[in-house]
Each structure stands twice: as structure tokens, then as C-alpha cells.
């Protein structure tokens, strides 16, 4: 099957009857149509999936940042003997295959009655991405010279003012790229979203998956669904490019 990723964009524009194996793929020599987008939108409510994705990806990232900023602050600026161990331990949770804990988590979700809810997914995605958020913020915070925070303390700032007026503004590029990366990770997360949702909280990953069914693959519709699913995140990435690059090459003025 000579299917290429570039076909993702051109396939939904194909007529269904032209959808056959092609090698090499055809890019322009076919009749263009937007019909598949309409079909997909008609068959499944795109907006509902989109909204779920936005809530789950945005919510889990926001929640993660709120927890991770103070955590990373303490690890970067008041490290204890165990700080390095805690960081490694947090990362080690990412080494566990997700499927290994699917059963207990599923049962917990049933027990708590949060199966197929946005709240449940938001929490689970926040937790699986938290190590990465903390690690990234920790790395950015480490770049900020401690003397600047000490200067703030000498200038009469309380801890809250120090974090609010000095640390956070200085770390904005870092925080922005952390947010972006985590939105993307949460947006594309498929294992937990597929396993813990059915209809109510299903995000765009589930929307794509619904076009790959046991009855066969509907390339044109699958491609249309995928394009629609990645479009928002692609646009977000495009607009935040500058912040992202600044964040990844972050350096404070000495």
C-alpha cells in the first residue's frame, strides 16, 4: 500500500471511487472535492470532539503548570539532598508501559464514577505529563541566576511577589514552550483517551479512530478526520513558533 503522509491532505479531496491503491500517489490529477469533510462532519459531531480535546488538553496542561511551577521552583532554588532522586523518580514513572496500569486505573475510574468524563481524562493526562512539565520548568528555572531572586528578596519582595513579579516573567518563554509541548502531547494522547472514554468525553483521537473500523479503512474519511483533528494544534504551533524557539534557546541576561 503506497500510502504516504502527504496524501493525508490530498486524500480527502478525492472522489470516493478514485480511492484505490496508487503508486506513485496522485497529487493533482484528480477531481477535487471537499465532500469528505462534509460527510465526516455529518456522520460525527466534530465540534463536540474538538471541544473535548480542547478541555482535556488545555485543562490538563493548566492544572499541571499550577502544580509544577512551585514544585520546580523549590527543586531549582532550594534543592535538598533528595532533589535529584525525586526528579529521577518522577521520570521513572514515564518508563512504565501505560498498558501495565490500565487495569487498576480503569477500576479506579469505575469506582470513582469518572469513566468517560472530561474531568477523569484531564486528571489522568495531567498526571502522565506532570513529570515532563516539572522537568522542563526545572531546567528553565535552573537557567535563571539565583542572584536575581536574591536581589528581589533584598528589595523587599515576599516569596509570593518574588515568584509573581520576578521569576514568572523571566521564565515566560520557558513556561510558554512547556505549555505548548504539553498541549500537543495531551492533544495527541491516544492510549488513555481511547481506553477511558466511550461517547461523552471522547476527544479528537477517538474521532479519528472511529474511522478505522473492523469493516475496513475509509482512507478518504480517515484522512479528512485526521486533518480536522490536527488542524487546531497545527495552527497553535504555527503562531507560537517564536515563543517556542525562544523558550528552547532560553538564556537570562546577566
Amino acid at each position: 500500500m503506497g500510502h504516504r503522509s502527504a496524501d493525508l491532505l490530498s486524500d480527502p479531496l478525492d472522489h470516493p471511487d478514485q480511492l484505490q491503491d496508487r503508486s506513485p500517489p496522485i497529487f493533482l490529477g484528480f477531481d477535487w472535492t471537499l465532500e469528505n469533510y462534509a460527510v465526516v462532519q455529518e456522520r460525527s459531531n466534530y465540534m463536540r470532539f474538538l471541544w473535548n480535546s480542547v478541555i482535556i488538553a488545555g485543562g490538563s496542561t493548566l492544572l499541571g503548570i499550577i502544580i509544577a511551577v512551585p514544585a520546580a521552583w523549590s527543586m531549582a532554588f532550594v534543592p535538598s539532598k533528595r532533589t535529584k532522586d525525586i526528579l529521577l523518580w518522577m521520570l521513572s514513572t514515564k518508563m512504565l508501559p501505560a498498558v501495565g496500569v490500565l487495569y487498576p486505573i480503569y477500576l479506579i475510574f469505575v469506582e470513582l464514577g469518572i469513566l468517560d468524563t472530561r474531568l477523569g481524562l484531564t486528571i489522568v493526562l495531567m498526571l502522565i505529563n506532570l513529570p515532563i512539565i516539572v522537568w522542563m520548568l526545572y531546567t528553565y528555572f535552573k537557567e535563571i541566576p539565583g542572584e536575581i531572586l536574591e536581589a528581589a528578596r533584598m528589595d523587599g519582595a515576599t516569596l509570593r511577589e518574588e515568584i509573581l513579579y520576578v521569576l514568572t516573567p523571566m521564565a515566560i518563554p520557558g513556561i510558554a514552550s512547556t505549555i505548548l509541548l504539553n498541549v500537543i502531547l495531551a492533544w495527541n494522547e491516544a492510549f488513555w483517551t481511547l481506553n477511558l472514554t466511550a461517547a461523552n468525553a471522547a476527544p479528537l483521537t477517538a474521532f479519528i479512530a472511529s474511522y478505522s473500523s473492523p469493516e475496513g479503512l475509509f482512507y478518504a474519511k480517515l484522512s479528512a478526520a485526521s486533518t480536522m483533528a490536527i488542524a487546531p494544534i497545527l495552527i497553535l504551533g504555527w503562531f507560537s513558533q517564536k515563543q517556542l524557539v525562544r523558550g528552547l534557546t532560553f538564556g537570562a541576561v546577566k
Partner: protein
Amino acid sequence: MGQITLSQVTKSFGDVQVIPPLDLTIQDGEFTVFVGPSGCGKSTLLRLIAGLEDITSGQIDIDGKDASDLPPAKRGLAMVFQSYALYPHMTVRKNIAFPMRMAKIDPEEQNRRIEAAAKARNVTDYLDRRPGQLSGGQRQRVAIGRAIVREPAAFLFDEPLSNLDAALRVGMRLEISELHKRLATTMIYVTHDQVEAMTMADKIVVLRAGYIEQVGSPLELYKRPRNKFVTGFIGSPKMNLIEGPEAAKHNAHTIGVRPEHIDISTTEGLWSGVVGVSEHLGSDTFLHIHDTGFGDMITVRADGEISLKHGDKVFLTPRTDVMHRFDDKGLRIE
């Protein structure tokens, strides 16, 4: 107003005691300089006074009030850092305003003080720039401006000039001295540069491994160093230290003669040697004399016009009236 008293202050990091029990009083309005080699605890001592580090035991009084457990913000001190530590995301104006903003001073008064500080520090033209767009000297001026507006009980300087080039350093040294004369506020200044210590200080505190080796005015330390260690820090180039039979002649284990207290001649003198490197500074010439029979080479300060070159044989005569004598423990013999 700005008297700072340290009583039996200690500091340990884990099991390592970096400051053994230490007593020190800094009088109101005094310009005190902490000098010592790196790792001697001078910066730690400053940070203990600032409150950036907690003392392990003892007591720190500022203005007669126990400040040992106060956070830095409540001690009423201002600090100037080696790296300037300006807030990179704020303009110069906002940097200078920050301590007043934290103290909730009314905006009009803030502006008045900003204008005054900027004018005095010569940074008025840069008020709307960010620190990243300023040169090192300008940044340090802004940092000092930021310290002044708080009207602190004392200023703390942590090697503020080490990141500047030599010419700027001299200029800033004068500026800080002038600031002290004008404000007459207590200043504590940490440096490893003995020229800064000598020129600026009312009182120098020489530290080694957390111990105070000597406290005194620059001239006291120059004229009567308490031990061999202090001689290494006060006076440039360093005092010549001679051990052995030559010292025994003066009933000492070691004798010390400053380079400026040796007369040099090509014809006669007490000691003889051969000129190694000669450093011509214009006003003075520093001659390094080898083969004197004392082990170490002897440094001599001579006239700038002197025309001696590598390999010339010379005679040296120390001035015995200003000679320093030390016992076998390195302590001064009167």
C-alpha cells in the same frame, strides 16, 4: 542608625563549619571591607548579614535590634551583587522602582526618587532601556541606584566591581567612595582586591577560613600586620618574607620587608642579587631580584626612571626601621 553587631555567629553547611564563632561590630556610617582569599567566608559572612543565609548559631543585631531571624526584606539593608542582578524583563526605571513598589511607596515619591537616583548615577538617558542594552558599568550604576532608593540602614556590596574592566573599576571605586561620603551610611564591601580595600575602607576585616585575622584601618594593617597572612593581603606587590640566618640576625623566625622599603644600588648594599624581570609602570618600576641567597626572589619598588635590565648585578639595603618581624607561628613580634 546603621550599626551592625555580630555576636558569636557561626555558619555550617552540613557538617562543615565555614564560619567559626565570630564577633564583629560595624559602627554606624563606617565603610567596612571584608578581604580574604576565595573561600575564606567573606561572601558567606555578607550573606548572613543580608539574611540570604540563615545563621547556625549566634546573633546579628542591626540598629540594636535582633535581626537573626528576620527575612532579608525586613532587615532594611540593600545589596549590590557582582553580577548586578538586575531584573532583565524590566526597564531601568522599573528596576530602580522595584524596591519602592515592594515597600508600597506612593508613585509620585517613587518618580521623584527615581529621577534623583538616575541623575546622580548618570543613567537618566537609559531609564527606558532594559538591562540587556546597557554596558557593565551602566548596569552597576543602575544596581547602585536601585539600592539607594530604598534608603537602607546599610549597603552591602558583594564584589561589585569584579566584572568590570580595569579603567571602569577605578571610576566606580571613586563613585562608591563619593556615595559613602555623601550619604554617610554604613557600607559593607566584600572584595579580594586589596587596592579596593586600601582605598575605600575605614575599616578592613581580613578573613581566613572564617576566622578574622585582623581588623583595623588600612594604614594600621599596612604598618602593623598582625601575622604573615595579613601581609599577603595588604600591600602591593606583596611584602618580601625572608627566613633563616638573615631573620635570625633580627631575633626573628621570619622578617618582612615591603618592596618600597628597600633601597637599590649598583655599587653597594647589604644584600646582593641579579635582576630578573623588571616591570616598568611609568611612575614606578618593580624589580624582581634573584640569586639573593634567600630562597625566594625579592621584589623591590624603585623609581620609574631606573635603567636596570635583566642580568644586572645589584645591591639591596632594607630599611630596618620599618622592618616587620614574625615568630615561628607567623605572628608579629613587636
